[in-house]
């Protein structure tokens, strides 16, 4: 592990950066301080190479060809699924490979939801959910006339009020759908604590793991979740890729949503029977190169060490939380006060400088942050904010990146206090 670590075993971001050639480029002539990894992570060289390698030497349609190259592609695809499953701590037979977390979350709502919800049933989500874990539930509850209820957030910090869960569980929700790590608050949901509570009233727990899997050790089976969704591009894989883990007995009882090739058993002119297991949900040609890229991303994250990544990111976030109020005194920081209760990101707003102006001003120092509602408009509405600025970190984030961030914040303050 020492290639990426200090002698003391900590992640050394300066070493890690060598694996990310894009960080040495100068977009617009300025050094790149990429602090938007929560939107999409940068891809390390081994991932880019794995894609090229597959396309240059192993490309064929998996599951189909009765020839050597086809078997190679099948093997590569299935090995990549297995590698990803190992990374996530689940059996490969329960891991549905899809195009994105959005697809995965839609599958839960539209397949499990439509099959299991009816009039008056309750679905519980938090007020902080990403649109991808909210709108599908709005749609399905409306269709079947079920009720959508919310775990509220604190009006000021946005923190999810988990202590309200107990009361809400009296509604006996059939499913509780929540983010593992909030993509605005950075807070980590206390899955180990709430999963048994939810199960004790007969509910299921569906977890949107997009912001968790690359930023901290996650063993899905250990979380108590019944469904768990993730996106490859947040982990260093390609944009396309992601998946859904679900317990085998849940998958078995779910109907496919998308139909076509590769997910069938027998097709006649007027009807069709579907394949078993994960295959039933994977219509069309499998994305072999994307899955190979995802496996390479998992491999690389394991090489860095997920605990080490988390520790490094917490150190970076600690500094952000400490120095942000100095650089921009009116900053309203959302989410937990303590960096240890976070994974990967900090969002804030300022009355002095609007988030978009901030992002533009930071860009002039090459600092890339995200400004907006981060696909969580309802949360922003609850907080009476139209936009926030989000700083997100990664294994490759250095103190120099944060230096540039704070200099940029001081620029902004100077401009707007003028």
């Amino acid at each position: 592990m020492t290639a990426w670590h200090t002698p003391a075993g900590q992640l050394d971001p300066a070493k890690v950066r060598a694996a990310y050639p894009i960080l040495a480029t100068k977009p617009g002539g300025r050094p790149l301080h990429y602090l938007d990894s929560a939107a999409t992570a940068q891809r390390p060289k081994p991932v880019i190479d794995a894609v090229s390698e597959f396309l240059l030497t192993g490309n064929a349609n998996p599951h189909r060809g009765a020839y050597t190259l086809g078997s190679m592609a099948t093997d590569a695809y299935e090995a990549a699924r297995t590698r990803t499953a190992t990374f996530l701590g689940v059996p490969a037979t329960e891991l549905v490979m899809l195009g994105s977390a959005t697809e995965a979350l839609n599958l839960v709502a539209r397949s499990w939801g439509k099959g299991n919800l009816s009039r008056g049933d309750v679905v519980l989500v938090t007020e902080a959910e990403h649109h991808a874990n909210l709108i599908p539930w709005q749609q399905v509850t409306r269709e079947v006339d079920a009720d959508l209820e919310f775990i509220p957030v604190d009006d000021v910090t946005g923190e999810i009020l988990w202590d309200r869960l107990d009361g809400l569980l009296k509604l006996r929700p059939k499913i509780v759908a929540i983010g593992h790590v909030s993509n605005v608050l950075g807070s980590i949901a206390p899955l180990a604590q709430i999963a048994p509570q939810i199960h004790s009233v007969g509910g299921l727990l569906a977890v949107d793991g997009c912001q968790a899997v690359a930023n901290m050790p996650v063993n899905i089976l250990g979380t108590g979740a019944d469904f768990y969704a993730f996106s490859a591009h947040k982990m260093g894989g390609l944009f396309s890729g992601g998946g859904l883990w679900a317990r085998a007995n849940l998958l078995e009882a779910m109907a496919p949503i998308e139909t076509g090739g590769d997910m069938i058993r027998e097709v006649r002119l007027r009807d069709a029977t579907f394949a078993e297991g994960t295959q039933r949900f994977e219509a069309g040609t499998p994305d072999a190169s994307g899955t190979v890229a995802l496996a390479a991303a998992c491999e690389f994250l394991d090489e860095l060490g997920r605990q080490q990544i988390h520790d490094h990111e917490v150190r970076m976030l600690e500094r952000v939380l400490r120095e942000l109020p100095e650089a921009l005194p009116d900053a309203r920081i959302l989410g937990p006060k303590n960096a240890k209760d976070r994974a990967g990101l900090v969002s804030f707003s300022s009355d002095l400088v609007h988030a978009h102006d901030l992002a533009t001003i930071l860009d002039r120092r090459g600092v890339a942050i995200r400004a907006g509602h981060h696909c969580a408009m309802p949360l922003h509405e609850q907080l009476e904010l139209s936009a926030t600025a989000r700083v997100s970190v990664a294994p490759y984030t250095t103190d120099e990146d944060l230096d540039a961030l704070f200099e940029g914040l001081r620029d902004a303050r100077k401009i707007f206090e003028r």
Partner: protein
Amino acid sequence: MGGVDDLYREQILEHHRAPHNFGALEQPSVSIDGRNPSCGDLVTMQLKLDDAGVITDVAFSGRGCAISQASASLLTDELRGKRADEITELGTPYVTELLGIEVGPARIHCALLGLETTQKAIATWRNKS
């Protein structure tokens, strides 16, 4: 840092801090909300037009980034006396001229919000009359 200083130069910041024509008209011919949902920027544009389609009065309110609010403010200074059909033809070049600087693709939708809302207001007014 020249680019930013230009975009956030004194004139623009002035319009942001103390926007012109900010508020509401007594009896607007038309009043329309314009939003950039991806940013949360909001501009409400109110126009008074005469029968010949000439803008006789204007007010706006809103909240959002400096670029969106300053652009709307700068625009309102220009609208009185203009014919509706002159406005509907305007686009990015006009706003660039107003601001005195190229805004760039990442923020151009902020800069255009005031103009686009005005154009929406004119379309609505036309449909009504």
